[in-house]
Every structure is written in structure tokens, then in C-alpha cells.
């Protein structure tokens, strides 16, 4: 008795339905990406809050100013392109930092793992949205739009560089403090502050 064809037939119809909806879901994904980013960022922020009870008083002497870029702290609504690039840079750099914390920090492992999963999800979907935008640019034949995109790209590159330097300062701080407990607590507080400003950017984008 051959049950495989029956199984295939049973799964064929749901698979077709899923296949029909995937392109639509992916096409909607980039348009609603800021909503997903908002929710994911807020969840990461709350996880960072839960990873430690309170800040150790002895670590107050080792605090450092990491100088979050002013563009991130701005109250003006950002452009979609800039927002996506900033999120991508933040997700990539924060993921690298948390990757170091898996073996060197005293944080709760389950919270740490959830944060890493969310950051990885952010990077993956942002990359797909960038690919779709690149395909759209190749199909476009308007030179004026290309010129405008070039200037916009310059601005976004500068902002990404500033953001990257910001995370490098945190990374270097950890190395200098030899991944001490206080250093991790200080980095945890700083990342919580950073995530909040990115969360606020998603709200500003909706307002725009």
C-alpha cells in the first residue's frame, strides 16, 4: 500500500497556498519592516533590562562616554533608506558584541541567546530588503533619481561610519577592561540606551 502519493496530495494543497502567499508576504515585508524593527528592538530592550537586577555601585567609577551619534538621538524623522542602513549596522555590530559575551559575560544565557536570534533576524531581513531595492534601481532608467540616490548614499555612508565607530568604542572598552563584570554591565546599560533611540526612530518614521 503506497501512502506516499496520499501524503504528497495532502501536503500539496497547503504548500501551494503557502507558495502563493510567500511573494506577497515578502513584498509586504520591506514596506512594513519598520513595524517589525520596532517590535524586535523593544523586545531586545526589555531583555537587556531583565538580564541584570541592578547596576553594581562599584562599577560607577569605570563608566565611559561612548558618544552615540547625534543622528540617532535626533528628533527629526529619518529617511527610510537611512533607517534601514542604521538598523543594519546596529544589528551587525551589536550581534558581534553579544557573540563575545556568550563565553565571557555572566549574563543569563537564555536572555543572551534570544537577543542574538533577534539581531540575526534583523540582519537577514534587512539584507533581503536591500537586494530588492538594488533590483529596483537597476530597472529604473531615470538618471536624476540615480543622482539623488548617490547623494543620499553619501549621507547614509557617513552615518553608518559614525555608528560603526560608536560600536567600536564599546568593543574596545570591553577589550581594555578584559571583559570584566563591570565592563559588561556598563556595555549592557549603553546598549539599552542605544536600543531605545532606535526604537524611537521607528516611531518617528511612522509619524512621517
Amino acid at each position, binding site marked *: 500500500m503506497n501512502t506516499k502519493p496520499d501524503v504528497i496530495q495532502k501536503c500539496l494543497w497547503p504548500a501551494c497556498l503557502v507558495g502563493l502567499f510567500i511573494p506577497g508576504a515578502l513584498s509586504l515585508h520591506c514596506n512594513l519592516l519598520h513595524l517589525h524593527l520596532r517590535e524586535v528592538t523593544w523586545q531586545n*530592550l526589555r531583555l537587556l533590562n531583565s538580564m541584570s537586577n541592578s547596576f553594581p*555601585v*562599584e562599577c560607577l567609577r569605570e*563608566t565611559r562616554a561612548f558618544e552615540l551619534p547625534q543622528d540617532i538621538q535626533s528628533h527629526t524623522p529619518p529617511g527610510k533608506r537611512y533607517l534601514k542602513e542604521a538598523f543594519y549596522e546596529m544589528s551587525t555590530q551589536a550581534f558581534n558584541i553579544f557573540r563575545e559575551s556568550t563565553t565571557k559575560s555572566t549574563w543569563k544565557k537564555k536572555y543572551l541567546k534570544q537577543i542574538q536570534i533577534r539581531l540575526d533576524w534583523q540582519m537577514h531581513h534587512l539584507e533581503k530588503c536591500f537586494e530588492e531595492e538594488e533590483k529596483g534601481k537597476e530597472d529604473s532608467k531615470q538618471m536624476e533619481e540615480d543622482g539623488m540616490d548617490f547623494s543620499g548614499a553619501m549621507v547614509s555612508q557617513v552615518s553608518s561610519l559614525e555608528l560603526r565607530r560608536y560600536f567600536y568604542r564599546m568593543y574596545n572598552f570591553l577589550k581594555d577592561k578584559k571583559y570584566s563584570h563591570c565592563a559588561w554591565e556598563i556595555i549592557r546599560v549603553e546598549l539599552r540606551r542605544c536600543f531605545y533611540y532606535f526604537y524611537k526612530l521607528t516611531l518617528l518614521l511612522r509619524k512621517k
Partner: protein
Amino acid sequence: MLWSQNTSWIRPRDLYPVVYIGLMVGVVSAWPDLSDESCTLKVTFRSFRLILSWELKNHSIAPTHYTLWYTVMSKPDDMKIVEHCSNITASFCDLTDVWEVLPETYIPRVDGFRGNTMLVSCISDFFLATHVSLEPPDFDIVGSTNHINVIVKFPPVIPKILNGEILQHYLPLVIEEQSGKIVKKHHPKLNGNIIGNVTYVIDKLIPNTNYCVSVYFKSKVMGAINRSPVKCTFLQPGQETESSESAKIGGIIVMFLIAAVFISTILILKRVGYICLRNDFPKVLNFNNLSSWVFLERPPLETVAFVEVIHVNRKKKVWDYNYDDESDSNEEVAPPVSGGGYTMHGLTGRLLGPASASSATLEDCIQPDAEEPDQSEPEADTERLMAAWPSPEQSECCKSGAYKERGRLPQDPVSEDDDSFTEESGDKITFNVNLNSVFVRIPDDDSEVPPTSPSFLEETANLEDSDETEISFLAASGEGTQPPFASPSAECPWPEDALSDKSDSSESDADIRDGYIMR
């Protein structure tokens, strides 16, 4: 068991690092966290003011005054003293104008003193975006017939820490309306710049119902939700509101417009001639003589043309299809006798128009010599005539023959069979009167001109020669018309003898035309 020679001896100096590490771990674990057990610090918003409050866990320690210090995590600065919260006796401090950045991590420290001795020191950290709790705002409610005004009290100036998008995105205001077991939530939209109180109207409520309202800020950022105390109001029924008054005014205006459109349509149709409005109303709708209509009085005499029929005692003859001569019979009842010896039969013709001026009288036709009261036979068909004559004012657009016919003598078919044939139709009574046996008189007191009736003379002449004929007769009309049989006083062309000898069988040579019998 013997140790082998290759066993490395654990020397005491190798244990030193182990001991040291153990001691350090113990010391580090013994170091207090910022969440000190000696006191509990709490940050909240009260009436949009950021308040830091503290409470000692050990109540036996009672400091006399407190001093507040703080620092921030983002800047490697030393502790700063809060000037207006230095050496205070209260166990709270207003930091609205001190802590102005929401995503910042603030680290406050409270030192409790008794005199110059510090009894307790409390320190903690607050990430305001997630740690602060928001108390509900103050509000008032004003209930009306079907709506409630909820007045949420905001400060004249919103604190900087709540400015911008905080109130719009992080602190959505929720107004709960509860009636019985039904709870409804309202989400008024707050803009970024809120100045003063905010009024929200809960409408579409049921009068004569009790409603309770609660207000709070709902935000996942600010922590748990604190609902305000409930305030209730009872909506009074039947109160006039501005909306109901405006609705009434609007309804009145609409009705007025509809009536105006309807009246204008009727007038236009009347002008065009599409519709005809009758002016000659039926008698029951004649309100000209309202008093008589109300009291059901008889119309005045001047509106009625009386016709006095002078009955000549003549035997009634019924033709029984027998051409033989028959004697007259005296079976009819003798009519009432007037003072002049005549048999009077009043024929009342009701005139719709003024008829007094033109109503002619036939009194002059009465010959006082006629003395046959007892033996005169009243015509059986002589009855009180109630003829309704139409008003001379004819309708403008209605010139139908029906009206004309009403203005004329009603057609009474000449019947050889029965000269007492009476036909009653509507408001008029037609009857046959043998002119050969009667004198007709229309009383008219005001008339000085004796009515002329050339036709009367003509008929008299005809009657002398012709047989008794039967004609239909009606009372004289109103204005402008002369009774066909009206005659001046001195000219009564109806000799009685001539009339009495006439038979009543032969057909007259009267020409019946349009209801009139012309001679």
C-alpha cells in the same frame, strides 16, 4: 598505599592564588548592589511631575533630614547634589526639572542624617523609559442629557522629559466609560504640544442612566497601568441641549420650506390652468352666512324668492287614457286660504346669491276677486319649492353646461300622465304646475319697478287658446333675472276664468329648450 615518587607535591605557595581568589569572590559578593536593602527608592509621575520618593526598611532608624545626590551612566561624572532637595525633612523630591532625558540611566543617592551623623545611605539606578510608573492624571466630568464631557487636567507646561513624542506614542490616554457591566474604552488623540486641559466628549449616551468614568495612561514603556479613581454621573433626561434645539430649529425650517414649496406649486398649477379651484362650494361649505349655518337658521327672506301660487280651485284630472270627459273630483284637500281669498302656496326658492333686489313679487298679480278658497283644488304637485339657484358669480374657468342648467329652470318633463309629477333632485325640487289654474307671484317688498314679464302676457294669450298645459316651474332666480311669470300689479294677464275653463290635456306648443319651457 604508597605515593609514587612522581607525585608532585602540592606546595603551600601553590594554594595562595586559590585562597586569594576565594577571598576576592567572597568580598565581591559581599559588595552591595545599587539596590540597597536599607531603603526603597521609587520614581513616579504625579500630575506630570517626576517625583523620587524613598522609604526606609528599618523604621527604627529615623533620620531628621535627607540629602539627594545623583549621576548619569552615559557620562563619567561624579555625584551631583540636588540643591532643592538638600537637608529636607520630606521623604520625596521633585526632579522634573533635573532629570530631563527619558532613555538615560540615572543613579540617585539618598543620605539620611540625624544632626551631622549620617545614619543611612541609599543608592539605586533608574532607566526612566522602563522603570518609572505613571500615575493617572486628574480629571473632571460634566454630564448632560446624552453626553459626558471629560476634562483631563494637563499642566500649562509639559515637562521636558515627557515632551515631544512621549505623550503621543508612549503615553496614550485611555478613557474608560462604564455603565452597568458594559465597559467602553476611548482613545483620544493627543498631539505633541499639549497646553492646558484637554476636553473629550463621550457622546451617544443613553439619558436617565448612570455612567462612571476612569482615566489612565496606557504605555508598555512606562510600566504597569494605574487607573484613576472612578467618577460617576447620572444623565438627566429631557434636558434641552444645544444639539436638540438646533435640531428643532432645523425641523421647523424644513417644514416651512416644504409648506412654501407646496403652496407655490399649487399656485403655479392654478395659474397654468392645470388645476381648477372651485369657488362654488356646496351649501354645507358656504360660510358666508356663518351664523345661519351655525345655528341652522332659515336663510333671510331677501335671499329667498317666494313664489305665491294662487291656486284656482280646479278639479284635478288624472288622465286615465280615456278620452271621454270626466267630471272633476273634489278629493284633494283644500289648501290654506289667505286673507285675500286666495289659496296660498309658498314656493321657497333658496338663492345662493343676493336675490332680494331682483326678486320680484307676484303679489300684484293677486286678484282680490278670486274667491274660491274652499273649492279650489290645490295642485297636487304644488309644493313648497326649494330651489337652489346658483350664485351669479360663476366660476372663472368652469362654464360647463351643468352650471348653466342649474341657473335655468330645471327641466321638468311634461307629463301628460300626471300633472303633479314632482321630481326632486339634489337640492332642488321640480314640480309641475298648471299655469292655467294658478297665479304666480314673487313677493318683492323693495322693488319699485314692477317686474315686467312680456312672456307672461304672451303666455296668457296662449293660454286662452290652448289647452291646459303643464309646465315645469321654478321660483324666480336671483340677481338680474326676472321671474318668468312676474307681472306688475296692474297687469295680471292671467284671467282666472280663462284659466279655469281650460282643459289640461293637450300638449302645449311650448318649446322645451335647455330646461326652459318657452312660449
